[in-house]
């Protein structure tokens, strides 16, 4: 569904956002994870034809982002990371406007907008100016655009950043209702684990890991994470925190030594980069 080959983006200030990135994704929901500044947003913007790459190729549904941008645009929806509604307009008006922009008739757009907003539990709120809505409702309004547009591929750039836990759960539920292929970026590992069938980890503009959440976690089979505030031998140090991966059977011994025990999550893919878990 999406693939890149040696995709590079160098900004005018000389900084590289992407460095010869090679990825491909074809699952129902793919999460692109990475730290802030890893290149996630640049990748999404190139794939959704908002930004030109410096070199390399990127394809969406087999179409090239440079030479076939017009065709790609007909088949995608892309919700930018910091997209904010025009506060004075209602959620209904903004979804309808977006759908008319995609070529729907006024009648169809109104019907689809209303249905999508109702489906995302915005029935009551849809006719209020969006500057009166909560952050979660605003994000759901954008997800409603994606739902109503019925596009083949939906790009969501950090759809839940800055939301409270309840709003985040609401947006997750909304994303699951989108029938199309979804490519989302996030730096919340829990989000990637909960939502995606496939995970691509990028850092410093390069792809580091690629697989299903289960694949990526398989190297931790039988392990647990132990952590302590302070120094420890053979540990990974993150600020004042020291982290180590040990066999589950050794948990009690580490608890006695004052370590806290944590279950393994996708976050550990990040933390463990560069260390051999088997050792």
């Amino acid at each position, binding site marked *: 569904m999406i693939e890149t080959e040696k995709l590079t983006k160098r900004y005018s200030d000389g900084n590289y956002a992407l460095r010869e990135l090679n990825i491909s994704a074809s699952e129902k929901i793919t999460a692109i994870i990475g730290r802030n500044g890893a290149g996630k947003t640049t990748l999404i*913007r190139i794939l959704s*034809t*908002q*930004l030109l790459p410096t070199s390399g190729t990127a394809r969406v549904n087999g179409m090239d982002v440079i030479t076939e941008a017009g065709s790609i645009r007909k088949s*995608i929806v892309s919700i930018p990371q910091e997209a904010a*509604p025009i506060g*004075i307009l209602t959620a209904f008006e903004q979804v309808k*406007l977006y759908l008319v922009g995609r070529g729907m008739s006024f009648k169809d757009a109104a019907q689809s907008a209303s249905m999508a907003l109702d489906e995302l539990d915005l029935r009551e709120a849809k006719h209020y100016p969006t500057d009166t809505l909560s952050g979660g409702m605003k994000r759901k309004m954008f997800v409603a655009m994606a739902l109503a547009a019925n596009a083949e591929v939906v790009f969501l750039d950090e759809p839940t950043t800055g939301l409270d836990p309840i709003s985040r759960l609401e947006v997750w539920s909304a994303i699951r209702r989108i029938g199309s292929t979804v490519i989302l970026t996030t730096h919340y590992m829990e989000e990637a684990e909960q939502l995606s069938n496939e995970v691509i980890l990028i850092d410093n503009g390069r792809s580091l890991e690629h697989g299903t959440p289960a694949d990526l976690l398989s190297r931790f089979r039988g392990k647990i994470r132990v952590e302590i505030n302070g120094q420890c031998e053979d540990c990974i140090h993150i600020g004042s925190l020291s982290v180590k991966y040990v066999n589950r059977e050794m948990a009690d011994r580490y608890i006695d030594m004052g370590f806290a025990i944590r279950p393994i999550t996708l976050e550990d893919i990040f933390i463990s980069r560069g260390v051999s878990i088997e050792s």
Partner: protein
Amino acid sequence: MNLKFTFLLAWYYGLRTVGRGPSYIVASLSSPLTLLFIVFIISRGTLVKYAIVGGFIGLVASVALSSAGDAAFMRLQLRMQDLYVASRVNPSDYMLGLTLSYLMFSLPGIVLYSILGYYENVFTLPDVLALAGILALLVVSTSSISFIVSSSIKHVRNVWGIAGIMSVVMTVLPPTFYPYTFIPKIAIYALSVTPVTPAAVLTQGAFGLSPLMAMEIPVMLVETVVYFSLARYLTRWREK
């Protein structure tokens, strides 16, 4: 062209905004009405007709030029442009929709100036038709300048400052609120770089307040075409 989108954007972003935020009307009227008051006081009422006619021009031009701030804000802060780039909307539909929105912002002011003009016996029906044509060209040319400028704004913090400077310089310096005969012809030619100048000169001529300077007709037409074409080429749609 997707005219449905263009008109819906104008309807929502223009009329709905005016309806739900009456302060926009006051804001768009404040500058021309203040200048009308000053001209009235300084000229002891003798130049008030110029100020009323200039008020139409000043109002439409200042709303359209201030829109550079809106267009940049929607691109940089709301990310609306990104949303529409990755869809079927093309830049011309988007630009035209926003331009028509700004025209809608001006409507309450145009109504107010029409009432003032009626009471001051400023215009006849042919004058109104000439004014409508001039204002239509003016809104296209000044909005085009706004889009070109807004594309070059890189930070939200600069958005309103640049738009404000543009609006004041380009609407107050030209002979919008005073007879164009007050300044040398060479200055008229120099100031014609802003479409507000030919619009003001032609309006004063059409209303019989000053001699008609016919040369400004082609200037106005050419500027509208040139600025609109430049906006199409220079306005950043897909980023590099």
